[in-house]
C-alpha cells in the first residue's frame, strides 16, 4: 500500500499474482467524481504503478453506488477563461494518456454508473467489464451541459465502437445499459456483481486479444466519406437543436470530420473546443440549470418521510397518469373513480407507460400489480398520501375531502392537483384545514419533471416538507409555491399564449408565430402549445387568471371551445392535427422583427410579478421552475437569468416601447425594482 500521501482518492495494492488493484474512493464524498485534485492524485499513482511494473492493472471503484459519475461540475463554474479551461482539460488528458500507455493490460471494473469523464477513464483502459444490472448505465452526457467529452472521449469512443454508435452516444447524451454496451462493444464482458472482481482477475491473468478496427470503420473515416457522414449527422442534429443555441453537438461532428485521421491532433483540438464551449453562455447556463436541479432535489433534505402507498381520486388524464407514475416509482397505488369504466382507460395508459419504461414483462406485471383500481376507496385508510385529481369544482372537492379526512391515517398527506382553485377556498371543510396542500403536476405527467408544491402562508412547514419529500420519492422536481391564481407555470405561460392569439388576429400566420418562439429557444411555439394543452384547458385557466389579474379571455378562444375545436385531442384546434402532429402550412413570410420580444417579454415580466408576489421567494428556484415547467429555453438559464444577462434596463425599456405601441398590458411590473 502506498497511502502516506496528502490526498488519497486513489490507492493501489499489488497482490501475490503481481496484479495492481487500483481503487478510486473519493475522500469525503458519497459519489466518485473527477476533479483536478483527483486527476493529479491518479497521476501520482500511475507513476508508482509504472515503477512497480505489475502484470496488469485493475481499476475499480470503492463506492458501492457506482463507478464514476463524471467530472466535478462545480469546478466548471470557477473557470474564468478558455485558456484556464484548456489547461485543466489538457492535464486530465495527459493523465488518461498515461493510463492508456501503461505497457500491461488495464481493466476497468464498472460496478455502476460510468458517465462522462468516468466512462472516458474506462475508455482509456484496454478492457472494460461491467456488472449486468440495468442500474449500471454508461454514457457521455456532456452535450446536456453544452459541452462534449474532453478527456479523449471523442477520440476513444469512435475508435472503440465505431463512428455511428459513438456519435449517437455523444450527440444524444443518452444512457447505455450494460446489455446494449456489450452488444455494441463498449464493454468486453458483463457479469453479475458477485463475480466482478473474479472476472477482472481472470481477464488480467489471461487477457483476450483486442479487437481490430473493421474495414467498414476504416472506410467511414476516409477523408471524402467523412465529409458525407458528417453532413448526414449534422442534419440529424439540426432536427433536434439549432447550432446557434446548442453549438456542442456540431462541435463534436466537426472535431471528427477534421481530425479523425490524426488522433494526436484530435486530442488537442478536443481540448480547445471544450475549453471554448465551457466558457460560453450556453454552457454556463446549462450548468447552472443542472446545479439548480440539484438544489431542488436537496429541498427534500431533512426529516425522512416514508411513502409506501398513494391513493389517487379521479382517474382522468391527470389522476390516472399520476397514479401510474407513482406505481412506476414503486409505490402501492389505489386509484379511485365513480365507476370501473372511468378507471379502465387509465389502466390501459399505465400498461403502455410501464412497457415503455420497464420493458421486462415481469417488471411490467409487478408495476401493474401495484396499481389497483379502487371504486370503493378502500385504499384511503392505508395511504400515506391522498391526491385528489377530480374535476375543477370546489363543492365537489370539499364534499370529497369531508369524506376522506376521517378515514385517513393521521399524518398522511392530503393534496389536491387543482390548477385553478385556491387552497383557501377548499380547506375550510377540514377538521385540520392546514393539512391540505397542492401537488400540481403537468401534462403529460411522465414527461414533465416539475411538481408545484402549493401551500398557503399558514401551512405548517412540516406539511410543505412532506409534499416536497413525496415529489422526490417519485423522482419529480418540487417547486414550493404560495397558493395564488395560476401558481408559477400557468401564470407565466398565460400572457405568452394570449399575446400569440392577438398576434394571430393581426394576421400573422400561425407557423410564423411558432417559429419566432422557437428561434428564441422555446421547445414549442405558443400556438402549438395551446393546441397541445387543449383549448378547453387553456380557456379555463385563462378565465380564472383573467379574473384574478384583470385581462379578458380572447373571444376566439371561447368560440373555438364552443365549437369543440379543442386542439390536438379533437384533431382540430388552431392547427389541424394528423397523427399527433400539427399540419403547418409552409409560409415564406419571415419572422417580423420584435415578434419574439412581443411574445416572450410578457412571460419574463410575469415571472418577475410572480416573485414580487412572493409566490416563489427565490429567484434561482423561480428560473428552474419556469424551465422545468414550461421548457423555457434552458440555454438561456431561465427568465430572470435571461433578463439579467440582457440587461434589466434593456428589458424594461423594450417593454415600455411595446406598451406605447400596443397597450398597457406591456406595462413593466413593479417587481423589476427588486431584482436589479
Amino acid at each position, binding site marked *: 500500500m502506498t497511502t502516506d500521501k496528502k490526498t488519497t482518492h486513489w490507492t493501489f495494492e499489488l497482490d501475490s499474482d503481481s496484479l495492481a488493484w487500483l481503487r478510486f474512493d473519493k475522500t469525503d464524498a458519497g459519489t466518485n467524481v473527477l476533479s483536478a485534485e483527483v486527476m493529479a492524485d491518479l497521476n501520482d499513482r500511475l507513476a508508482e504503478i509504472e515503477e512497480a511494473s505489475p502484470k496488469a492493472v485493475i481499476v475499480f471503484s470503492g463506492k458501492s453506488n457506482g463507478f464514476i459519475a463524471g467530472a466535478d461540475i462545480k469546478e466548471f463554474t470557477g473557470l474564468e477563461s478558455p485558456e484556464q479551461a484548456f489547461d485543466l482539460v489538457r492535464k486530465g488528458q495527459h493523465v488518461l494518456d498515461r493510463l492508456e500507455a501503461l505497457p500491461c493490460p488495464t481493466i476497468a471494473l464498472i460496478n455502476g454508473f460510468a458517465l462522462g469523464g468516468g466512462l472516458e477513464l474506462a475508455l482509456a483502459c484496454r478492457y472494460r467489464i461491467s456488472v449486468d444490472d440495468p442500474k449500471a448505465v454508461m454514457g457521455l452526457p456532456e452535450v446536456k451541459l453544452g459541452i462534449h467529452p474532453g478527456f479523449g472521449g471523442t477520440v476513444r469512443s469512435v475508435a472503440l465502437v465505431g463512428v455511428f454508435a459513438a456519435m449517437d452516444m455523444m450527440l444524444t447524451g443518452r444512457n447505455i445499459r450494460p446489455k446494449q454496451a456489450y452488444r455494441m462493444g463498449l464493454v468486453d464482458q458483463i457479469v453479475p456483481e458477485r463475480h466482478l472482481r473474479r472476472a477482472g482477475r481472470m481477464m488480467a491473468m489471461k487477457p483476450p486479444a483486442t479487437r481490430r478496427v473493421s474495414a467498414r470503420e476504416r472506410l467511414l473515416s476516409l477523408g471524402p466519406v467523412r465529409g458525407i457522414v458528417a453532413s448526414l449527422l449534422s442534419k440529424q442534429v439540426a432536427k433536434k437543436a439549432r447550432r446557434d443555441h446548442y453549438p456542442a453537438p456540431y462541435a463534436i461532428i466537426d472535431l471528427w470530420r477534421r481530425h479523425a485521421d490524426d488522433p494526436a491532433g484530435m486530442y488537442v483540438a478536443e481540448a480547445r473546443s471544450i475549453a471554448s464551449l465551457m466558457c460560453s453562455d450556453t454552457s454556463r447556463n446549462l450548468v447552472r440549470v443542472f446545479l439548480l436541479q440539484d438544489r431542488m432535489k436537496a429541498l427534500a433534505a431533512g426529516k425522512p418521510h416514508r411513502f409506501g402507498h398513494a391513493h389517487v381520486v379521479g382517474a382522468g388524464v391527470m389522476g390516472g397518469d399520476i397514479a401510474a407514475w407513482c406505481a412506476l416509482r414503486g409505490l*402501492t397505488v*389505489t386509484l379511485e373513480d365513480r365507476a*370501473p*369504466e372511468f*378507471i*379502465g*382507460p*387509465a*389502466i*390501459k*395508459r399505465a*400498461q403502455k407507460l410501464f412497457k415503455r419504461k420497464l420493458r421486462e414483462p415481469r417488471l411490467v*406485471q*409487478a408495476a*401493474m*400489480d*401495484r396499481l*389497483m*383500481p*379502487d*371504486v*370503493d376507496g*378502500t*385504499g384511503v385508510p*392505508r395511504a400515506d398520501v391522498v391526491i385528489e385529481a377530480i374535476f375543477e369544482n370546489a363543492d365537489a372537492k370539499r364534499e370529497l375531502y369531508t369524506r376522506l379526512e376521517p378515514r385517513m391515517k393521521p399524518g398522511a398527506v392530503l393534496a389536491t392537483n387543482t390548477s385553478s382553485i385556491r387552497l383557501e377556498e377548499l380547506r375550510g371543510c377540514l377538521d385540520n384545514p392546514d393539512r391540505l396542500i397542492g401537488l400540481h403536476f403537468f401534462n403529460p405527467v411522465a414527461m414533465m419533471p416539475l411538481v408545484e408544491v402549493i401551500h398557503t402562508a399558514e401551512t405548517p412547514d412540516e406539511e410543505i416538507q412532506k409534499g416536497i419529500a413525496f415529489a422526490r420519492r417519485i423522482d419529480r422536481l418540487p417547486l414550493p409555491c404560495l397558493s395564488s391564481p395560476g401558481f408559477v407555470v400557468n401564470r407565466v405561460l398565460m400572457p405568452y399564449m394570449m399575446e400569440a392569439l392577438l398576434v394571430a388576429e393581426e394576421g400573422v400566420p400561425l407557423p410564423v408565430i411558432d417559429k419566432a418562439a422557437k428561434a428564441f429557444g422555446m421547445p414549442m411555439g405558443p400556438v402549438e402549445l395551446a393546441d397541445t394543452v387543449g383549448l378547453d384547458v387553456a380557456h379555463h385557466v385563462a378565465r380564472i387568471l383573467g379574473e384574478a389579474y384583470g385581462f379578458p379571455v380572447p373571444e376566439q378562444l371561447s368560440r373555438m371551445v364552443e365549437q369543440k375545436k379543442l386542439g390536438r385531442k379533437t384533431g382540430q384546434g388552431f392547427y389541424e392535427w394528423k397523427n399527433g402532429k400539427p399540419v403547418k402550412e409552409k409560409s415564406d413570410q419571415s419572422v417580423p422583427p420584435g415578434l419574439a420580444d412581443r411574445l416572450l417579454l410578457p412571460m419574463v415580466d410575469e415571472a418577475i410579478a410572480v416573485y414580487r408576489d412572493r409566490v416563489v421567494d427565490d429567484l434561482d428556484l423561480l428560473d428552474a421552475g419556469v424551465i422545468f415547467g414550461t421548457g423555457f429555453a434552458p440555454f438561456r438559464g431561465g427568465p430572470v437569468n435571461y433578463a439579467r444577462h440582457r440587461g434589466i434596463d434593456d428589458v424594461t425599456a423594450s417593454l415600455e416601447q411595446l406598451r406605447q405601441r400596443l397597450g398597457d398590458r406591456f406595462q413593466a411590473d413593479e417587481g423589476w425594482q427588486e431584482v436589479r
Partner: protein
Amino acid sequence: MQSNRAPYGSTPVYVVDGARTPFLKARGRPGPLSASDLAVAAGRPLLARQKITPDLLDEVILGCAMPSPDEANIGRIVALRLGCGHKVPGWTVMRNCASAMQAVDSAARNIALGASDLVLAGGTEAMSRAAILFNDDMVHWLAGLGRAKTPVAKLKHFARLRPGHLRPVIALLKGLTDPLVGLNMGQTCEIISHRFGIDRQQMDAFSVRSHLRLAAAVDAGAMDEVIATYDSAGNVYETDDGLRRESSEEKLATLKPFFDRKVGLVTPGNSSQVTDGAALMLLASARAVEEHDLPVLGRILDCEWAGLDPAQMGLGPVHASTPILLRNDLDISDVDYWEINEAFAGQVLSCVAAWEDDQYCRDELGLDAALGSIDQDKLNIDGGAVSIGHPVGASGARIALHALNVLARTGGDKAIATLCIGGGQGGAMLLSRGAE
C-alpha cells in the same frame, strides 16, 4: 361409509370475507387474463378492504386444475403478487373440479389444528389458456432432431416429418376425459341421466332456469361477491359474461348433442360453460377474529370427500353430502340452502333424483329408504355453472362463498355446497351463517 367425525372437530373456522372475478366465457382463443392475473384481480381488492394487511396471512392456498407451465405453484406466485411479502408461504392443490374446495378445506383443517390463524384460500383457472401440446410422435421427432449432428442427417430427419406430427394435443380435452374408464365428463352425465330417466326437455328446462335465475340475481344486486376485473388493455369485466338472458327451451332444443354425438341428450346448452375465473375466501381462527376484530360472514362446520365409480362421477354430491347430513343429524329439509355445482343440468337433476330414489339410497348409500327431496327454491337460486360458468379450479370456492352470501340474504342458518369431481369423487361442505 367413512369417518363419523367432522374434520375440524369442535374448533370454529370462520369465513371473514370472499370475492371472485366475473367468470369469463372462453371464446376459442386465450382469454385476457392468466390464472394468476385472475387470482390477483379477486384477491387484491379483497385484501385491500380488510382490517388486516396481507403480510399477516399465515399462508395462501390455491386450487388450480390446469396451471400453465409458467405459473408453477401458482399459490405462491399469487401470494407474492398480492403483496403478502416473502415470508407468507403459498401452495397449490389439485382435486380436479373441487380444487378450490380442497384449498378451502386444507385452510380450514390447518386452522382447526391451530397451525394457522389467517388463510387466503380459493381457486383460479384460465381454461381458455389451457396448453396445446405436441403429440408423442412430434416429441420423439424433436428429440431425434437434437441428435442429428450433420446437415445431411438433419435433412434426412426433416424428410421424416409427417402432417400427423403436427396434430396437437388439447390439454383441456384431455383434462375433461377420464383416462381409466375412457369417458369424457359429458358421457358420464349421459350415463347417470339414463339411469334416472332424466330427459332432454328436463335438462333444457333446468338450464333455462339457471340463466333466468342468474339474470334476476344480477339485476337484484345479489352478486356482491363479484368484483370488477380489469385487463391490461383497459377493458373492465363486471358480470359473468356467459349469461344468456334470452335463453329459452325452444332455443336450447335446437342444439346438437355434443358428447354422445347425434343420439345423446347432453348439449353445450345444458352443460356448464368453459370459463376463466377465480374465487377466494379469507378464513380465520377464533383467535384471529378476536385479535383483529374481524367481521364474520359465516363458519365452515364440516367437509366430506367421497369416492364412487368414475363412470358415474356426477353423483359425487350425493355421496359426499349424505355423511355430513347423517353425522350432523340433519334432514335434507334442515338445510336452508343447497348449492350443487351445475357441471351438467342432467347431473344435478340426477343427484336430486338419487336422493328421492329408495333403491339408490338403500343400495348405494346404505340407508333404509330415500332421503328426501330438495326444495327447488332452496337449490341454486341464483343460477349455477350452466349460466355462470365452471372454471374448474375455482368453482368450489365460488359455491361455498355464494352459499354464505345467500344465507346472509335469506336469513337461513345452514347451507351445503357440493360438487362432483372428475375421476369419480364428490366433495361437500357444511356452512353456517354468522359467528355462532
